[in-house]
Every structure is written in C-alpha cells, then in structure tokens.
C-alpha cells in the first residue's frame, strides 16, 4: 500500500506495524507529529498500545525502561533538549540491556534557541550504549523502525533512529507501507530473555562491585561487536520479504572515484544529485553514506575508503574545540591503513542549526577538496560570515 506521508508519520506507521505494546513520550518540536499520530492510532484502536503521557522526557525514558524490563515492546520519541534531558536514563537503558527503540528527530541544541536540524543532539549521546542509525528518506524511516526492533531484541541493545528535523520530519514523500502480515512474520511478538516476573523473582541493576562491573561493560561491548553482522542478516531477511535494504553504510557511484563525499541523513539525497551531475560530466566523484554511527562501522568504512585518493566529510555537527564528529571518527577508523591506501581526508562543518545545504554548497566543497594540497588539521567551516 503506497501512501504519501511526512517523516514523523512514517515513524508512527513503523511503530504501529511493529505492534509496540507500551509508548511513553513528551512533545517537543519537531517530533510532535510522532506523538500526535501515535495518540490517534492508540485512540482509534489501530495500535492497541498503552501510551503513558508523562510530565518530562526523563520520565518518558524511565517509563519505557520499566515497560521493557517487564517484558514488552516499548517505544519513545524525542528531539534536541528532550533527548538531552533523557541522558541519564539513556545510560540506564543501555546498561540494563533493554531492547527499547526510540526515534530522535535531529534538532540543534541551545543556547541560543533554534528548532532546526543538526546532529549535535544525538551525537552528544554517542557513549550511552545505544545503536545509532541515521535515515535519509521516509521509506527508510518506516523500514528501519521495524528493523530496529528486530536488531534490538536479537542482541538486547537499545536502538536510536534519527531523521533530520523538518527536512525529513515535515516533508511528505511517497512511502510503500509494509504489509502487516509480512511484518508479523518478520517481527513476531517479543519474547524477553529476562524480565520482571513474580514467578521467577530477580533483582535488576543492583550495586555491582569493581570485581564484576567491568565484565558487564565487556559483555555490552561484545553485543555491540555483533551489531554490524546482525544488522546485515536482519536486512537480508527484510530485503527478501520487502525488496529493500539500506546497509550500515552505502557506497553510491563510488567505483574508481577520485573523490568521495561522506554524508549522513538527508544531505545524502542532495549529494546524490551532485554526484549524478558530476558523473554526467565524466568526473570521478562518488558518495559514501554512513547510516550507522554506533557501533561505528570501522571495518566497512575502511574497505569502502581504502585507496580512494581524497575524501570530503560533510559534518552537520561540531564538537567545539575539536571539529566535525564524523570526520574525527573516520580519521580514527582510517589511521591504521597503509600510507599508500589511506585517503586524504578533508573535513567540513556546515548546515548547523538548519542552514540549508544546497547543491552549490556541495559543489564548493568538492572544489575546495580538489584544490587543497594537504588536509587542514582543523575542519573548514562552510558558508560562515564571522
């Protein structure tokens, strides 16, 4: 069934098809349509979930932690300051190894106030023990919401899915809504490995001393090590049933490329158009989309970028005092490639607080990358008028 829908409604459809049992959320721009649509679905019975309308995002995350610990499939959504307010409980969900799925609609962080997109909200939650997946289209949002539950429940890790505020959350696109019966076959009802059960009482999250805490963190790390392979397998099943898949990363027209753009989120679509135009002129320019930021797909990006002469990383985020966050992660991932195979990496910080990233901006980045003799130690800020 094809429907035209905005990204936020694509989230709600994914949640409905995944037959989520408990939802808890608090409204924040630009995520509000997610909670509105889910409220409608719960009210009209098309989604028989309990929706706990809490007084804060901190409580929203706490409530889905309680629900997930008691054995059901649980979901929340937030953005920006809401996500930051959840921070403590993001760690608690990660450490509790609960297969919660949440959507974060990427929005900049104050001060000063700004409601438009960038990735500093979710990237600042990098170390909380959540898988992070960045989506490019509304179709990818619906599909990934369902895939995320399968991934989360297979390894007992929480999964956070991102879509760009307004550029995707409020943009309508045609979406092929997956068939419910097929989704049910793909994602059966959750059977919790461990849960709060009065028949088999256990204590969860009790004080753990130094002699065992590290082993628990190691087990968490082990689970994250398995994520890339698990996601690939799950996506294979998804592709067999629905004919679509995305991958942790995607190389686009990258064969024999002399320059690769590296993107995440909706900038990818703009970059695809630029790459198509450049390829039309016979220029050897391609694209690498990074969908999965945590765990960082180190082996995959190393293979994708090995031997490419120049790479331009587009970061819609910044770590003050350091640089673009994807660029930093990539430098680290590529460090141990042999010199002859290691690309020259040019980092660009752009599009913060929702500033438009047009094809002309990407053209400028391409020219700067070509013109550069050696990459600057500090990432270049694009379009800034200090």
């Amino acid at each position: 069934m094809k429907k035209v829908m905005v990204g936020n409604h694509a989230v709600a459809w994914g949640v409905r098809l995944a037959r989520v049992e408990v939802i808890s959320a608090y409204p924040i721009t630009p995520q509000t349509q997610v909670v509105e649509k889910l409220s409608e679905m719960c009210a009209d019975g098309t989604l028989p979930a309990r929706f706990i309308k809490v007084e804060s995002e901190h409580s929203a995350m706490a409530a889905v932690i309680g629900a997930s610990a008691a054995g059901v499939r649980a979901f929340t959504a937030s953005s920006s300051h809401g996500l930051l307010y959840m921070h403590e409980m993001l760690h608690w969900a990660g450490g509790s190894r609960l297969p919660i799925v949440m959507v974060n609609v990427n929005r900049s962080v104050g001060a000063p106030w700004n409601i438009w997109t960038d990735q500093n909200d979710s990237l600042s939650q990098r170390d909380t023990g959540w898988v992070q997946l960045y989506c490019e289209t509304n179709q990818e949002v619906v599909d990934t919401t369902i895939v995320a539950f399968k991934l989360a429940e297979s390894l007992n890790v929480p999964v956070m899915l991102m879509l760009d505020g307004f550029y995707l959350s409020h943009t309508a696109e045609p979406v092929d809504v997956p068939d419910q019966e097929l989704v049910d076959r793909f994602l059966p009802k959750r059977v919790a490995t461990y849960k709060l059960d009065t028949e088999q009482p256990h204590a969860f999250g009790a004080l753990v001393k130094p002699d065992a805490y590290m082993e628990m963190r190691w087990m968490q790390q082990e689970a994250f090590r398995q994520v890339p392979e698990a996601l690939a397998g799950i996506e294979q099943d998804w592709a067999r049933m629905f004919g679509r898949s995305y991958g942790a990363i995607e190389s686009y027209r990258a064969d024999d490329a002399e320059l690769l753009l590296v993107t995440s989120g909706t900038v990818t679509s703009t970059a695809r158009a630029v790459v198509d135009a450049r390829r039309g002129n016979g220029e050897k320019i391609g694209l690498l989309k990074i969908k999965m930021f945590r765990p960082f797909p180190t082996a995959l990006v190393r293979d994708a970028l090995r031997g490419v002469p120049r790479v331009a990383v587009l970061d819609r985020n910044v770590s003050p005092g350091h640089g673009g966050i994807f660029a930093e992660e990539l430098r680290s991932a590529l460090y141990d490639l042999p010199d002859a195979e290691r690309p020259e990496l040019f980092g660009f910080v752009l599009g913060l607080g929702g500033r438009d990233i047009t094809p002309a901006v990407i053209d400028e980045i391409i020219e700067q990358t070509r013109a550069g003799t050696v990459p600057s130690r500090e990432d270049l800020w694009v379009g800034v008028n200090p």
Partner: protein
Amino acid sequence: MSQVRIDKRIPQGKLVASGHLACPGCAAPLAMKLALNTLGSNTIVVMPASCFTIIAGPWPQSSLQVPVFHTAFATGPAVASGVRAALDQQGKHDTTVLVWVGDGGTFDIGLQSLSGAAERNENIIYVCYDNEAYMNTGIQRSSATPWGAWTTTTPAQFPEASPKKDMLAIMAAHNIPYAATATAAYPVDFVEKVQKAKAMRGTRFIHLLSPCPPGWKCGDDEGLELARMAVQSRVFPMLEVEHGQRWRLTMYHVGESVEPYLRRQGRFRHLSAEQVAHIQAGIDARWAQLVKRVEADSLVGV
C-alpha cells in the same frame, strides 16, 4: 528464654531475608518486611537510589524475595508507570507495583515524576520512607529535614533554616485515592494502611517516618521509641486522606511536649530553650490547623 508474642494482625512471611545490609537500628527493613508480607509475593518493587539500594544487597544477592528493579534517583514513579503498563498489557492486573523511595527521592529530586504519576493516577503503591536527610550519602539536608536540625550541610552554627515540606498535603492535593502517614513503630496501623491501599486502585501514597540512628544521633535501640514520641508529640501525626477530601487521624495523639523527643537526638542537641519553644509553637499551630481540617471532614473526632 522469654517468649515473644506477635500480634496476630501482623502478617508473617519471608519476603525480606535476614541478610540485609541496613545499619543497626534502621527502621527501614522492618517497614519493608511489614509492607511486603502484607502485599504478598505477587509484588514488583521499583527502587530508586536510596539507602535501600544498599540495604537490598549487591549483585548477585538480593534480600528481597520479589522482583526488584533498581533505578536512577528521580525515576521511581515513571519506571513504575512503565512496569504497570507492561503488566496490564500482559493481563497481570493483580500484580502490585510498589515504589520504595527515601525522602530525597520523594521530597526533592523525584517530586516531578511523583506528581506526574499521581496526576495520571497510576495504579501503583508508593512508600516514602523518610529518615529526614540524605542519609546514604552521609547525612546531608533534604527538604524533609526539620527546622533546626543539624546535618553535615547544615552545621550546628547554622542549622536547617526551612520547615519540613508538607508532603502529605502535596499528595492529597493531587486527589489520589489514598494518602497516609505511618511508622514501623506502630506496625498494626501501618499494616492496616497497606492493606487498605492494596484493596484500592490508582495512586496510593504512604509517608513513613523512618528513624535513622546514625543520622539522628541516637542509640541503635532508640529509633522506634523516638518514632513513637514523634507521633505522640504530634511532630508526625498519623493520618489518612481519601481522594484528597476526607482527612482522618488514625489514632489518638497524647500531645506530649516535643522537648524530650528533641533532647534524645544529637541532631537537635545545639537547640536553645527559645528554639525548642519555637518548634513547639509550630507543632501546636499545625495541630490546631489539622484538627480543624479533620473536624470539618467530620468523620472521626480527635
């Protein structure tokens, strides 16, 4: 060997094991034992950070023989809301969800999530065991610390300057089905309140005065006696409020002078006669107000 006779109204059970890690004389495990043995094994405990995080025992042990979910400081009522929703979705409507929190987690950092849960009338029982300061971190003041008390953050030269927050009134103002005060020093009264709470649905709140010998600077064997004195001197009256409307005193309060109660505790040792008189005047004023309210509801006389 003398025989101890236990009041038949006190339920027996083994839902709290003897190997817990409370300080000598702590009233909290006794209260937990009374509560859990009254509620029974079909209970799930949500436990935000508090002394009881330690008392319940480190992994892989647990002194509570029911499922426990340990959670971050501010989140007891929100986690409990999620557990409740999940149980209901699984058809387990008869399982009790008990939140067990200290005064810091209730009066201070957890007040927002508690207010949210109460406003939604979540079907949970919430017990605040109030030892009147952050005892687990080493006796720092909370908004449950009484006026004039010494703590490590309110030294004797400048003791606690604010009166204790009126938590029962705050909860009653949410018009929840049940709000009550209690103490393990009056076990039958406490057990009856837990029984009454268990028979109801919606948010049920019990504010429990829980003596802490290291924090109150009293002997290990003095806690329960001090709690009785707190009740009888009307420092901590035994009350229940149904649906925010019907206020009722659940026992007779003698109206003893507060001075012996204060003088037995090191945390009040620095108080002058004038300061003690000031405390007494405050108690008398609050009592007069309370009696008026109870009489207005005209259910039971005082």
